[in-house]
């Protein structure tokens, strides 16, 4: 029976692996886009425009207060209402990015506020300019400070990404569903898929712990 299992595993292992790669790829893009958007949201929330502050508050409340699946469906079908045809991958990446940006903006904000104000004064006195200050003084330090939390967020994004399977993206979850309809072995397939997810999240978690320990030592 074990050799049966391992031969079956060899059969659908590769398909699951490809699904896992799609998941990783999608989540990485979503995470990166979400990072940029998260920085923008932070700047808006701490800027001088009252509309910007209000917008950010509503944005964060909305994306943190509604399910990923509902956001995905809305974003996938919204363009078709105005006649645009958006490929599922684009919709999924956009939905993930918009969602994670809400969480990342909070993470990044705490990083930004941890930088002593004196450094910003020095940047101001030496005329670095807002953009240079953001890119050369703030972001390198913010990244260093928030990397463990960002890795946690990436883990969440990977877990939440499983719902993109409903708009027919062949991520790990969808590949599992396809395999189940081919092999009629749902317990096996879904358990193995679970193992794949577990491996992904556990490796990332380990990375986060290692980094966090390195930061503690340095300080």
């Amino acid at each position, binding site marked *: 029976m074990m050799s049966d299992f391992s031969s079956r595993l060899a059969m659908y292992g590769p398909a699951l692996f490809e699904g896992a790669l799609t998941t990783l790829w999608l989540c990485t893009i979503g995470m990166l886009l979400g990072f940029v958007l998260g920085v923008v949201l932070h700047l808006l929330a701490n800027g001088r425009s009252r509309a910007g502050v209000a917008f950010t508050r509503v944005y964060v409340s909305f994306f943190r207060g509604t399910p990923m699946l509902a956001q995905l*469906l809305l974003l996938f079908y919204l363009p078709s209402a105005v006649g645009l045809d958006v490929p599922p991958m684009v919709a999924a990446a956009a939905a993930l990015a918009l969602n994670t940006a809400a969480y990342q903006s909070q993470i990044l904000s705490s990083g930004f506020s941890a930088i002593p104000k004196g450094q910003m004064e020095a940047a101001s006195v030496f005329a670095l300019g807002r953009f240079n200050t953001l890119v050369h003084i703030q972001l390198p330090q913010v990244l260093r400070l928030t990397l463990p939390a960002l890795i946690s967020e990436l883990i969440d994004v990977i877990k939440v990404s499983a719902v993109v399977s409903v708009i027919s993206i062949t991520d790990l979850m969808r590949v599992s569903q396809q395999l189940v309809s081919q092999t009629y072995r749902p317990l096996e397939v879904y358990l193995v898929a679970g193992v794949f997810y577990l491996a992904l999240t556990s490796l990332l978690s380990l990375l986060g712990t290692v980094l966090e320990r390195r930061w503690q030592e340095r300080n």
Partner: protein
Amino acid sequence: MHELLSYLPEFANALLVTLGISLAAAWVGLVLGFGLNALRLALPGFGVIYRLYVWLIRGTPFLAQLAVVYFGLPIIGLRLEAVEASILSLALYSGAYFAELFRSAWASVPNGQLEAARVHGISRTLVFWHVQAPQAMAFALPLLGNQVILTIKESAVTSIITVPELTMTAGRIVSTTFSYVLPYALLVLSYWLLTSTVAAVARTLGQRMTRHLRG
């Protein structure tokens, strides 16, 4: 638009289903989480089981867990209806998160208090209930509301196995009326309203219950 209005009763019903399964699962999950944490503290060997459970649940997507329960369990003879499977899965899922919540709540009580009690011969059970629990629960209370919100959000995934909750109902309306934006917009607004209400309720309850502690 008229057509959509005729679906409102069904939508309202779906909202109740969402609330129902979420609150039921959250309640079971809370008790489960509380129990898991208590066992972890009481039995030295249980820690391994605890950590394994938390690792499995928090390391995998809820959808995968739901799929195992609904599609996979029948293979070993346990066949559940969609709603039953949903509540069970959601309860197991939130249970792990509640357990971690209670774990950090218990850890927030200074160890010195535990030691002082033990030194005076107070049994571990009494310490758990009379020294740790009151303080830990004060710590945990504000966070419980958040976990309920997370459960409500995750319940949307059960639409995939056709539980007649909000997301599935919205999808049904879309496929029969061919209007996309309004149903899904209403969908997200409903969730937003739900979670915001729970957040507000949790905040007020939390403030009321811990008023005596803030002196």
